[in-house]
């Protein structure tokens, strides 16, 4: 149950990709007939991505190597190309590192960064957003829904506030794009990051939606592919697979998400109910259908993961002990958890192959694991209050 870390590629997407590796390997940018088939496939995939998010035209979709590149292109591309609009960039304290780090990087290049706080559920405080927005704000970048705690942000309301000050709104929809319907037009989104693998497409593929008329400086300069915004020969098999995954997502998202939401709620209840000092991270209802994030006091996340791993369950944690930096997740700290609480977090992300029996299996395992680790731990409820 660690689907957020990686998903299997949808078999129908693999089928769609195969011809573009075996026989139709033409370069979409060439002129001969052989390459025209590649060009058509490229544009068909672009159309499917545009349709998924109700983009005004297919030309507003730029293919990238994934969400990290899309976020970098949006943030650095807008900031560098629109200095005349201002040098302030506003984002939240629950963003993915591929938003956090480009924004931090820009502060070394003369830009000013504001990281807005969130409430205990991880929802952005709109009043703060209004206060921090000024005439020098070029860009506001907010995650559609956080991948760690699942909280869905009020994008429509955010958009109204941002556009009231004439700034651009970039939305990182990496975790959300395969699970909840997104409409860039009606929600007022100027730039949107999409990830292929998060909708069961191949890894190493993503896209950035850029509203018509918005100027963005490219990250890669070269042969001028993707209207000059992303040079480099197109990864045609990847693009075709991504397009197919987007088409399937559009058709099947509703029923998949309904099923996932039921599993999610069963799992959350089953993980929390039997144990004292067990809590939910993130919002109880404004939540991604696949996301379960809980925490247990007095024990540490990695030892929970190891215990689950021994029983064949793969999960994830916001604990420092599972990270490269030895710091607990910044998202868990941003929702107000103390370090020792963040260490006790457990994240399970569901996928369309999970079934109720698996949910029940995990629910059955958890009390034993938590009780055993608590028996090993020197911490008690007394320390929790101190």
């Amino acid at each position, binding site marked *: 149950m660690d689907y957020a870390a990686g998903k299997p590629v949808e078999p129908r997407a693999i089928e769609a990709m195969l011809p573009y590796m075996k026989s139709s390997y033409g370069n979409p940018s060439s002129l001969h007939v052989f390459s025209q088939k590649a060009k058509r496939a490229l544009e068909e995939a672009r159309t499917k991505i545009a349709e998924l998010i109700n983009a005004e035209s297919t030309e507003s979709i730029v293919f990238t190597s994934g969400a990290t590149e899309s976020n970098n292109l949006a943030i650095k591309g807008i900031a560098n190309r629109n200095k005349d609009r201002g040098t302030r960039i506003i984002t939240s304290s629950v963003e993915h590192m591929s938003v956090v780090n480009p924004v931090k990087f820009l502060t070394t290049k003369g830009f000013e960064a504001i990281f807005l706080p969130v409430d205990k559920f991880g929802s952005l405080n709109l009043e703060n957003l209004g206060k921090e927005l000024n005439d020098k704000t070029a860009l506001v970048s907010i995650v559609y829904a956080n991948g760690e705690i699942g909280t869905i942000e009020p994008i429509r309301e955010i958009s109204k506030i941002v556009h009231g000050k004439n700034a651009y709104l970039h939305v990182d929809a990496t975790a959300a794009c395969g699970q909840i319907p997104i409409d860039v037009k009606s929600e007022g989104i100027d730039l949107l990051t999409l990830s292929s693998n998060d909708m069961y497409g191949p890894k190493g593929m993503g896209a950035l939606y850029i509203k018509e008329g918005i100027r963005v400086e490219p990250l890669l300069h070269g042969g001028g592919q993707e209207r000059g915004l992303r040079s480099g020969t197109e990864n045609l098999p990847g693009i075709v697979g991504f397009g197919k995954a987007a088409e399937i997502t559009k058709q099947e998202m509703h029923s998949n998400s309904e099923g996932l939401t039921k599993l999610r709620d069963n799992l959350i209840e089953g993980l929390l109910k039997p144990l004292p000092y067990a809590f939910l991270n993130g919002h109880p209802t404004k939540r991604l259908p696949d996301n379960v994030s809980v925490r247990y006091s007095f024990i540490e996340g990695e030892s929970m993961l190891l215990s689950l791993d021994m029983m064949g369950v793969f999960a994830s944690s916001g604990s420092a002990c599972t990270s490269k930096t030895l710091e607990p997740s910044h998202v868990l700290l941003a929702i107000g958890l103390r370090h020792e609480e963040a260490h006790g977090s457990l994240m399970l992300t569901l996928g369309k192959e999970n079934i109720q029996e698996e949910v029940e299996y995990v629910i059955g395992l958890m009390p034993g694991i938590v009780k055993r680790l608590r028996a*090993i731990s020197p*911490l008690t409820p007394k320390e929790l209050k101190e």
Partner: protein
Amino acid sequence: MYTEKVMEHFKNPHNLGEIPDADGVGTVGNPVCGDLMTIYIKVKDNRLVDIKFKTFGCGAAIATSSMTTDLAKGKTLEEAMKLSRADVAGSLGGLPPVKMHCSNLAADALHAAIKDYYQKTGREVKK
């Protein structure tokens, strides 16, 4: 990621628990960092006749605590003071590099427990 030996000690830690009438108690680490361990010792004729631990932390923290108590049990206080983090990690067949500093604190907890015993009994801390 972990050796079989580490997993063995994580699954079935040795000498787990507390000693209510311990002769020495040592606590190191901090729950804020994600690792906290307490070691309890019982001393007779200058030897560690009983030793127990409690640990909050990752798999490596639990395994190193268990191994430390195994290595220390029955040793004289002088021998136990010489027991190092490297001895513990070595006996477990090694630890991932990132865990060497943050989670390998049990030898320090043992030394702290022995110093506590020396203090309580008015003896000089021997190196």
